[in-house]
């Protein structure tokens, strides 16, 4: 049974990585095009993903749909009063997103596509995460 559980997430992840590459979301060029407001491509993808996500979550909540194991689906709310972390942390993420042209999902999908040098930003991202963990108590949240 455990094997099937792993297989389930492996298949969903494979579809996700496949689509990220085929739709060129992983492309540094597409991210530049997005931040220059030169094309609807990225906005169309993210926008439609959100629309489908909103509708799906509303259906799940309003019908109290349970997950496959019969447990109620609960989504923990994020604390919007911590606006500093979202604006400052988000801006740092945005700087990195535009610089590298890839966010976490695309970094790994690009690695899989044969762009072996992506192991460098992946290791840097892990280092960045670790440094955040060390400094967490000293940063405004």
């Amino acid at each position, binding site marked *: 049974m455990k094997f099937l559980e792993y297989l*389930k*997430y492996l298949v*969903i*992840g494979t579809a*996700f*990585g*496949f*689509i*990220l590459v*085929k739709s060129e979301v*992983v492309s540094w*060029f597409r991210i530049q*095009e997005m931040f*220059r407001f*030169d094309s609807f491509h990225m906005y*169309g*993808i993210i926008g439609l993903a959100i*629309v*489908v996500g909103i509708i*799906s*979550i509303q259906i799940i909540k309003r019908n109290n749909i349970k*997950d*496959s*194991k019969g447990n109620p689906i*609960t*989504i923990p709310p*994020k604390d*919007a009063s911590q606006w500093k*972390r979202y604006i400052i*942390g*988000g*801006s*740092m993420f*945005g*700087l*990195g997103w*535009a*610089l*590298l*042209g*890839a*966010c*976490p*999902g695309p*970094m790994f*999908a*690009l690695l*899989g*596509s044969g*762009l072996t*040098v*992506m192991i460098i*930003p*992946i290791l*840097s*991202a892990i280092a*960045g*995460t670790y440094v*955040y*963990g060390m400094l967490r108590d000293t940063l405004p949240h």
Partner: protein
Amino acid sequence: MDILSQPMPWYIAGPIIGLTVPILLILGGRMFGVSANLRHACAACNFGNVEFFNYDWKEAGWWNITFLVGSILGGFLGGYVFANPEPIALAQSTITDLQALGIQDFDGLVPADLISWEALGTPTGLIVLVLGGFLVGFGARYAGGCTSGHAISGLSDLQLASLMAVVGFFIGGLLMTYLIYPIIL
């Protein structure tokens, strides 16, 4: 098989990516978000015993790490086995702007001028690959999520916090694109 080797239009990719949210919720009550895996990686090798990484990463992250391994496999299928045959059909204005900044290679998914083992030996390539990755990792955890966790999952759940994070993503992205990249390129 031909259709697998063509670029996927935005109006097909967007809805399928959006479906990842309910599929993960219904199949296992999981909330979609990739950058948590970077934290799991830190927890797996927490040599400095940092409290933020003291948790059972296998228990918390096995499903997400498996998802991530799938994403690498999907990248292999989509970017190697069934790679898009033509260069990306970028907006001409983007191409003109980037050429003015000195980008020459428009053939692949990323410019070899910046993102390649050769570029890693140049100051600009080093900044892009090392500092870019670092900021993505640091910023994602500081903000409590990345594009998938905030822009897709969080906004799908109408979370104000995620909207703030996405505003932050764009503040940073626009600063980099219009102010910093023209300096470092």
